[in-house]
């Protein structure tokens, strides 16, 4: 790549879920109307946390290794590309095996397509579409020293999935002084005998409005029950 000192940094905690990245991804020359980036609510019933996921471009990509047809290639810059059209047999091995859940199976095309860091742009010195437009800085493409100067979080590119270590080209912002992102699954799973809803954890950082608000019984039991704090309420001074 001509801009070898520019890297991708991901900080999902800043994301506001606006989907500018998704809309812009579809505009990239290699994508032609298909968005490769993922952006979903983690669990909308309990909160507005969203998870933007681009391809992390693993050093040893699981997707490429599980491909039966040698269709997924990593280039000299470490970019893991969409499946080669002549080879892809649309088996979905990559979709199911990727630890980050990145590849997309376009069933209508019998073809796996995935984030290629906007190769047509990055290969000529431009930023990827998603990271250019992202209004929150959740997706950032730039120099390591710039992000170090701007942010309190530090970038890591190592993930520990249980016993599997995965190193990636794309960086994840995490707490200062972290070497790798500790990745936990068991805490977020329902277990027998466990008496809480694991999805409650998706509220990380944001409270239930009801829990942080004062509200009273708002539906009156009978016609006569006084409404609270309305025009006929006595509580205001």
């Amino acid at each position, binding site marked *: 790549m001509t801009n070898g000192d520019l890297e991708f940094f991901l900080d999902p905690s800043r994301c506001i879920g606006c989907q*500018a990245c998704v809309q812009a991804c579809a505009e990239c020359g290699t994508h032609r109307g298909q968005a490769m980036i993922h952006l979903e609510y983690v669990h909308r019933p309990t909160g507005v946390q969203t998870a933007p996921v681009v391809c992390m471009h693993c050093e040893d990509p699981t997707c490429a290794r599980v491909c039966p047809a040698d269709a997924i290639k990593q280039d000299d810059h470490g970019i893991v590309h969409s499946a080669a059209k002549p080879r892809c047999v649309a088996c979905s091995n990559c979709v199911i095996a990727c630890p980050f859940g990145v590849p997309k199976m376009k069933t209508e095309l019998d073809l796996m397509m995935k984030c290629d860091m906007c190769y047509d742009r990055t290969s000529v010195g431009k930023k990827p579409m998603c990271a*250019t437009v992202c209004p*929150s800085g959740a997706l950032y493409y730039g120099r390591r020293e710039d992000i170090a100067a*701007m942010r309190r979080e530090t970038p890591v590119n190592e993930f520990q999935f249980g016993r599997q270590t995965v190193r990636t080209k794309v960086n994840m912002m995490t707490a200062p002084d972290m070497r790798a992102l500790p990745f936990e699954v068991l805490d977020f799973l329902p277990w027998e005998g466990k008496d809480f809803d694991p999805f409650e954890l998706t509220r990380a950082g944001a*409270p239930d409005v009801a829990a942080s608000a*004062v509200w009273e019984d708002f539906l009156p039991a009978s016609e006569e029950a006084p*409404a609270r704090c309305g025009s006929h309420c006595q509580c205001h001074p």
Partner: protein
Amino acid sequence: MATLTIPEEKYIELYGPTPAHTPSGGWDNGEPDKLVKTHCCFCGVQCGIQLKVKDNKVTGFEPWEEFPVNQGKLCPKGVKRYLQNDHPDRLLTPLIRSEDGFRAAGWYEAMHKTAAAIKDIQAKHGKDAFAFLGGASMTNEKAYLNGKFARIALQTANIDYNGRLCMVSAGAANRMAFGVDRAANPWSDIPLAKVIILTGTNLAECFPILTDYVWRARDAGAKIIVIDPRITPIARTADLFLPVRPGRDSALANGILHVMIERGWTDEKFIAEHTHDFDKVRELVKRYTPEVTEKITGVPAASIIKAAEMWGPAETSMLLHARGIEHHTKGVENVLTYINLVLATGRIGKPGSGYGTITGQGNGQGGREHGQRCNQLPGGRDINKPEHREFIADFWGIPEPELPKQGLTACEIIDAIERGEIKGLLSISFNPLVSIPDSNRTRAALEKLEFFGCIDFFLSETARYADVVLAGSLQEEDEGTVTTGEGRCVRLRNSVSPPENARVDWKIICELAELLGKEKFFTYKNAGEIFTELTAASKGGPIDYSGMTYEKIEQNMGVFWPCPTPEHPGTPRLFEGGKFHHPDGKAKFHAYEYRPPAEDVDPEFPIFFTSGRVVSQYLSGTQTRRIGGLVDQYPEPLCEMHPLLAERLGIKDRDVVRVVTRRGDITLPAQVVKTIRPDTVFIPYHWAGKKAANQLTNRALDPISKIPEYKVCACRVEKVR
């Protein structure tokens, strides 16, 4: 009688909204002929963007990273805005009402019909019986022209604009407190703030680009306080979230100030030297103890104290608000009580310290500055002040008595049409059927019009009622300037010309003036000439653009007003050194007791109803409901409610519910989420007809600003299936 002549489905089939998914020429549309550096056509950030142009069509976009405000960043609307060009629904020729909807007409016929109707109505019922409604998404040039056209060509007092639905409460409050109506600080001050209050602003969805400014402040250690009945995306990670009960904002601000005064977190020196009337406020807020405030607002007393503890002693701070506190019958009071929080600390007019309102519309700021409002003349002048009237009458070359007096505001114009007092209407880029509260009454009013003319590029739901539709121009088909939410006047470049038989808006207005016999006042050859006149008209006024030229704006990537001389660099930050714009240079505190909303909950309608936006749609959706990607993102309105309320009503996620108010009802799917107060439901308002949230809302107006109360009324929710 302006009634519909064909069924709704037929209008949709003929004129849309049709969601467009692919760019002009398809995904393989090849290399563009040129890239035009211009701005997004949507909200008041006015993001810089480069439009790809090929064969006189906009075929895509490229980020414009050099523009300092957004640095290439865009929200989903900005990314897809290019799809409004070369759109299948585009009006390509004037239309005249017929028995099967509309028939295509020539310009001669359409313009003469319009001019004849204006003359006829005004001859029979008086000049003021014909009204003009403008828009705040149009250029400064057009805003100025609309005002001049109404006063000189139509000679009507009744000209107003859809900004009346947007930030007039903030504007009025700003003038009352500071003597001028503009955000006090450039947005570049946000990252320098140590504490930020975001009140009544769903910043991440309605002004997404400012999210980055807020995050940059947080990167530097700032704390943010979000005040909203809903956990919006920016609220999720807030340091403090105050879930205010709808309609209680002024009480909350009074409560916070109570704690600040009690703890001594006020800047007495600043208050004494630079402000008036703090004593009245001090006296008033004594009653707003945290406990009392908790009872009124539904915000826990401990959170109110915490907010005061964060805000009070802060080193630097910014307070930003939007429609959440402004869309109330006490909108001006709400804004003024929050301004009290800023003035009491003296943290204004300094780097990283200040205040701003977030403008919703593309030219929300500029659209309200140049005389498009019923009470205002160019340069932000007051139509009721004799010296201001004199200046503008002279400038235009008409006798002062011929200059109409103050007329009715937007909602009042609709009311007057309903009462039969206004018989004719010309509107441009305004879709009141979707955007004005109580849409059933708006529809009834439209049906009563003797003549209704519309200038627009798509056939909006309102334009279906028109007698004549004049095919106008999209933003990229014209040029000019807009003034962003921070007071920065930026340059819109012409990218393409209007397609086929459509025309540039300002030329239509000028030609109409000619047909009304006023051509000598409207002799512009290009938009630049209108701008030159506009700046000259503003000279010496409260809003002074007189030192601006297109070249200067382009070179500086925008100029902040006031800019009174050609050498003047513009004024990014107001009130430096504590100098405010009232004649005595001081700011004013305002002591307002909390009062309930016009319609509060009661046993019959026990739930609060509030409305707002989603990130993928803009205003009444005339443009964004025609862009496929944006439609897919949030296809139709949902009713947000808390699981505690849902459970009580036996409603599950995606069940179909009916929400009823005293004015109307809407049937739609429920979205059961913990991100909203259990006593409140929320519906976004961008859709028309049976999906319009404004069927429910209350057209009660703020006595000062005449803004309607969109943000609170009482409703009942029933499960349908």
